[in-house]
């Protein structure tokens, strides 16, 4: 089987505008496709980062005191007693700011007293002894807090009783003690929330903190203390048995709306929902990129189809002549497909260069990681296939041209 590239090329060179336009479209499409897929991959990876938390079975309630009769600590204890008694609830705990929600306190942690220059910035949570179970996170070493270790909320007078123990994540432990022996070691904090020093009693395997856009999202320190009443408000984490989250949420919300007239339930949301809101920008960027890239491929297909159709109708007599001289239908189809393949290949070669240049530019200007080359390898066959599919229909139509056309004048 011969592909007859030479006559196809010489025909194209005599009428180069259409092929050049299509090749240009293909090159831009390939460059966009490769970079878009690469960026989308990063966003999807970011959204799918392991959290270490039992996200699907947790909801969060935020309660705010509304008048001067509101007693923060008593209200909190009453709420927790109620929540822990609800059937379907695995565990409930107060937390100073819920994880995965974008905002949360950070403090500096140090190995020496007042050594701010070497402070390691970390998420800071005030929780009680049930937080481990309420989050569904796992300990890698040591223990979690005991009920009798939990301190009352920080008082507003300023003299804070320091917490003598702390639980940290493995990520923070690695940053503090790269040799791997953090358990039982002393640490200091930048605000005096801990005693100087406090002891690391437990290490959490992995947990995603509050700030999703911070690259140190898994650096966490927990102190055994009922949360500070800012506003005055408190967040409760409630973890339910699998599948019972929504039922329990409705029942709990309804009860708590009216259980204490001195406070209001500001909102009750599933952690899954709150997490999705935190990643809304990443998700939307992925949606935009996928949508625009798909439209781009569709438009390019239209371009290829249009050019091939035009060529078929213009060359009807020539095709008829070839058929009359003995060319098979397959030969005609092959002619158009090879022609299309040549155009696509030129576009793909230019497109690869364009993709690399734009990928490099994006990495220098927008701090994106450099484009992986195997994305090129994936993009090229895709456009070849798309090109062949778009040219298929016109090529079939060309093959259907009757040899009699050659003998007739137009």
């Amino acid at each position, binding site marked *: 089987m011969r592909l007859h590239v030479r006559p196809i090329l010489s025909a194209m060179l005599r009428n180069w*505008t259409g092929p050049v*336009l*299509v090749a240009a*479209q293909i090159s*831009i499409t390939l*460059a*966009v496709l490769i970079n*878009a897929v690469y*960026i989308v991959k990063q966003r999807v990876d970011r959204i799918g980062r392991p959290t270490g938390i039992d996200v699907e079975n947790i909801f969060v309630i935020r309660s*705010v*005191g*509304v*008048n*001067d009769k509101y007693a923060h600590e008593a209200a909190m204890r009453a709420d927790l007693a109620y929540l822990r008694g609800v059937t379907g609830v695995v565990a409930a705990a107060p937390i100073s700011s819920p994880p995965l*929600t*974008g905002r949360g306190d950070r403090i*500096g942690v140090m190995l020496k007293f*007042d050594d*701010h*220059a070497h402070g390691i910035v970390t998420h800071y949570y005030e929780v009680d002894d049930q937080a481990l179970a309420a989050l569904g996170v796992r300990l890698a070493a040591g223990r979690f807090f005991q009920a009798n270790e939990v301190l009352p909320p920080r*008082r*507003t*007078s*300023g*003299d804070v009783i320091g917490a003598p123990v702390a639980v940290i994540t493995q990520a923070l432990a690695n940053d503090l003690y790269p040799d791997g022996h953090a358990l039982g070691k002393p640490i200091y904090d*930048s*605000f*005096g929330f801990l005693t100087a020093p406090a002891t690391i009693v437990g290490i959490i395997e992995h947990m995603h903190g509050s700030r999703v856009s911070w690259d140190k999202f898994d650096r966490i320190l927990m102190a055994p203390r009922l949360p*500070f009443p*800012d*506003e005055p408000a408190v967040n409760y984490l409630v973890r339910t048995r699998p599948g019972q989250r929504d039922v329990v949420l409705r029942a709990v919300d309804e009860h708590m709306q009216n259980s204490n007239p001195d406070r*209001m339930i*500001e909102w009750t*949301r599933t952690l899954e*929902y*709150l997490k999705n*809101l*935190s990643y*809304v*920008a990443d998700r*939307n*960027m992925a*949606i*935009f*990129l996928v949508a*625009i890239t798909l*439209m*781009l491929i569709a*438009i*390019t297909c*239209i*371009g290829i189809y*249009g050019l091939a*159709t035009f060529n078929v109708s*213009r060359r009807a007599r020539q095709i008829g002549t070839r058929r009359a001289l003995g060319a098979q239908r397959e030969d005609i189809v092959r002619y158009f497909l090879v022609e299309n393949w040549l155009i696509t290949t030129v576009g793909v070669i230019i497109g690869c260069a364009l993709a690399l240049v734009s990928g490099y530019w*994006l990495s220098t200007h*927008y*701090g994106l990681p450099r484009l992986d080359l195997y994305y090129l390898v994936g993009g090229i066959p895709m456009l070849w296939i798309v090109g062949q599919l778009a040219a298929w229909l016109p090529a079939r139509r060309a093959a259907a041209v009757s040899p009699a056309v050659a003998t007739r*004048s*137009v």
Partner: protein
Amino acid sequence: MLRYYLRLALKSFARDPGATALMLFAIALGIGVCVMTLTVYHAMSSNPIWWKNDRLYAITLDSWPAERPANIDLPHLPPTQLTYTDANYFFNSGIPERKVLMYQATGVVLSGRASKPLKINTRITTADFFPMFDVPFQYGNGWSARADTGPEALIVLSHDLNERLFGGLNSVGRTIRWSNHDFRIVGVLEPWMPQPKFYDLTVGSFNEPEAAYLPWGWSKALQLLSSGSIHCWKVEPANTVDELMSSECAWIQMWVELPDADARTRMQALMDTYWNEQRKRGRFQRPRNNRLSNVNEWLEDHQVVQNDNRLLVGLAFAFLSVCLLNTIGLLLAKFLNGAPVAGVRRALGASRLHIFLQHLIQAGVLALAGALLGLGLSAVFLWGVRILYGSDPQTGRGGYQALAHFDSIGIAWAIALAVVAVIITGLYPAWRIGRVSPARHLKSQ
């Protein structure tokens, strides 16, 4: 002549509706996507108080310890907010024509028709806030500087809150309960939605303005902690407003209105003198970085426009260029298919220019129709964008509480892009068909 060409154009489109629809679709899609991304970009990058760009300045200075910058991502900038000590000093300087200290706090409102308590964001601010930022009032007005120091129990409501509590009626003079204290309403704002929310970028650059405003003195009187960012670096007590006020924590936003270059120079000089004096006392260990930033600089410095949005604008133009290349190809094919007709017209005496103009008009009609369709498409896309970026007002999390709506800028862009589309898509095919030699096509007839 023009009308004749227009009629020819419509006839020619009617001859092959399939190809025409494809071209129309390509142009419309390209323009629609471009107008959408440009509208979002424009909404993000615009200066909502441009008419005062040479008068309003945010004051910042670097009070952080020598070892590290306040913001690791933007190490060249001082902290976004001021310590109370510094803010108070500049507030009492007497140089600015107007000046505000402020931060956001939350309060619980019990009043009017709302049967349930309502938690609202409240701005604790000084009297000049309203005249300085040209905030429009529907009823009543702001408060005086005396009310700040009193503090007098006055409150200003947003349009929206007044709508919810009093059904939009004139509520000036009535009393509402804000976090267990009675406040008399002195003013109700008209709908006011500066985007981005330039005067406080710490709680979300595209959040809605607060629902109520309280005189500054209530900060201390009620010990109202900020619900925005309180940024600290030193080990010191910072649990109450009193403690915050004597701490090195940065938690106050400060803006000044300086009428001319002279006032600006004097303000800068005052900041520099103050900085030197405080440095001698052991504060300000980092290099001097005393900034008076106008609104444009402020928004630029704090990267209100996200890289993602710039990327999408670039992508939209790549998309548009493919759409236009596509249309050129299809149009060229269409025109050349009609070459025999053009040849006959040439033979009958039409000049090259006439053939060229006739086809250019044909391309123009197409591009214009495409632009109109694209404008409609972009409105649909923007509607989708608003849904995608919708935030949860109750938890205050998610996308943008308010992102500028489709505005005249979008229409202007669509028209500009349509003109570009005509020039790019129409010129070459029209020129090619204009050069067709009549003889070749007459021969084969």
